[in-house]
């Protein structure tokens, strides 16, 4: 662009520059995309009659949101919600406590190579497996109940927090840490006074964010028998009790919104 002078540009028509500059690549992408789209849409079997029949039920569900039924299944909803919250709290505490040493170990500028490899391996495994698959395996091993959900969420928290914490430690200001070391600090003192103050605000923010995610995930773990509100919700759908399902969904949305608002305030205060 810069080698074109103003004189050359004056008096010429102007066209919007394309997003992908190389013409052959642009056309290959466009044509490939259209071919894929045709192939994809043609292989999806949609039973339009069934969809049309379902619209009625869909409308009933939308109506259910205007008159959610909190009362008739209140004990079930309350038990499920309490279990979800309990799992969230316990898993967040344990997950955060374990992810701090692993996060330290996964930072290349702190940990020696063998420790680094092991910790990065744990992070990679935890991030590659989805919560729901881990939950299925843990339910098979530990039996039904919130313990499997608690372990699943803790495991997922470790992968998420350790990775982000390690990245933050790797990006920290080296000068401060070096100054502490120069004053003759032990390794623990070095971590405590040189590294921890730099990453603490971000750690608090990420932990709050993770609590938020854990609650959302705890709402689905019940589908595979790992405890929480998901089992109640599934039953409500299966029995076509849309007003109860709407009540549960509204409570989930409200709690998530409250958590998001709270974590926003806390993050604003520590940063």
């Amino acid at each position, binding site marked *: 662009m810069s080698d074109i002078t103003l004189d050359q540009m004056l008096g010429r028509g102007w066209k919007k520059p394309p997003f992908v500059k190389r013409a052959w690549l642009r056309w290959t992408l466009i044509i490939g995309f259209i071919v894929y789209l045709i192939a994809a849409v043609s292989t999806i079997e949609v039973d339009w009659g069934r969809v049309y029949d379902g619209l009625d039920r869909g409308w009933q569900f939308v109506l259910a949101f205007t008159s959610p039924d909190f009362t008739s299944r209140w004990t079930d909803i309350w038990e499920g919600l309490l279990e979800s919250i309990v799992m969230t709290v316990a898993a967040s505490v344990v997950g955060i406590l374990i992810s701090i040493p692993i996060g330290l170990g996964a930072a290349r500028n702190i940990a020696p190579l063998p420790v680094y490899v092991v910790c990065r391996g744990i992070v990679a495994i935890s991030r590659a497996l989805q919560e729901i*698959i881990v939950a299925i395996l843990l339910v098979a091993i530990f039996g039904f109940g919130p313990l499997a959900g608690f372990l699943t969420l803790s495991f997922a928290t470790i992968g998420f927090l350790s990775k982000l914490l390690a990245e933050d430690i790797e990006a920290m200001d080296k000068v401060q840490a070096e100054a502490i070391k120069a004053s003759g600090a032990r390794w623990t003192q070095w971590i405590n006074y040189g590294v921890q103050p730099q990453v603490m605000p971000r750690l608090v923010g990420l932990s709050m964010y993770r609590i938020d995610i854990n609650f959302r995930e705890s*709402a689905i773990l019940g589908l595979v028998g790992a405890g929480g509100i998901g089992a109640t919700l599934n039953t409500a759908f299966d029995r076509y009790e849309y007003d109860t399902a709407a009540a549960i969904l509204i409570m989930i949305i409200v709690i998530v919104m409250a958590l998001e608002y709270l974590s926003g305030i806390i993050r604003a205060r520590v940063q």
Partner: protein
Amino acid sequence: MPVLEREDARVWRRRTTGESLIRWFGWLLGVAVFVYCWQIISASTTWFFVWDAPRIANDIWTRATPPRWEYITQLGRPIWDTLNIATLGTMIALCLAVPVAFLAARNTTPSALIIRPIALLIIVSTRSINSLIWALLLIAIIGPGVFAGVIAIAIRSIGFCAKLLYEAIEEIDHTQVEAITATGASRWQVMAYGIVPQILPAFAGIAVFRWDINIRESTVLGLVGAGGIGLQLSASLNVLAWPQVSLILIVILAAVVISEWVSAKVRGAII
């Protein structure tokens, strides 16, 4: 500066007595809540199963290895379905997220009092409900199958894409918009030439990022009957065909790793 008078020597302390008492009570409360949560979890756990877990885990491992490799011939179609669910779902979500994002961004919304809160409500409510729950709901409404999965992924992704997109719109360079306005452009021309080119890289990045997440989520949608490889997973789990389960888990893991790699490459090329 808080100091402690002791035998006419002044000792420096980090916090006043009141402050440290408050902190101490905060920690006490936190520990109490955690212990209470742990008690609830432990009360609804059958500890006999947990003590038996190592044996069960070992048993499952011996059953699951080696994976039944010849089963992969039956997995071609489910993988194709999974890919379609993720891709078509992301595309529908993007089409719906763009108008929502423009309505939610402070600098482009037509009315900050009425329309912006509605757009924000759409973003929050679609974001806080997991795609598995949307799939459950849609299966009750339009019947099981790939189509329900596509719609579930689409609805779930609206909030995510619209949130990131409206933040990108709010951060655009205002002088460019002003320059286009100064040429006498209409509202839509300002949009097309002043705003859209600025958010296009962010848009492409968000699209690929969400596509990557959707591949992950669509692999498990089949557990509730919404098509894809999850259907095979749940069928194999139901008949306890562990060698098939382990093969499916390997395939899912490979799909997740490949999609993450593709998304990282494309985002690296854009940014």
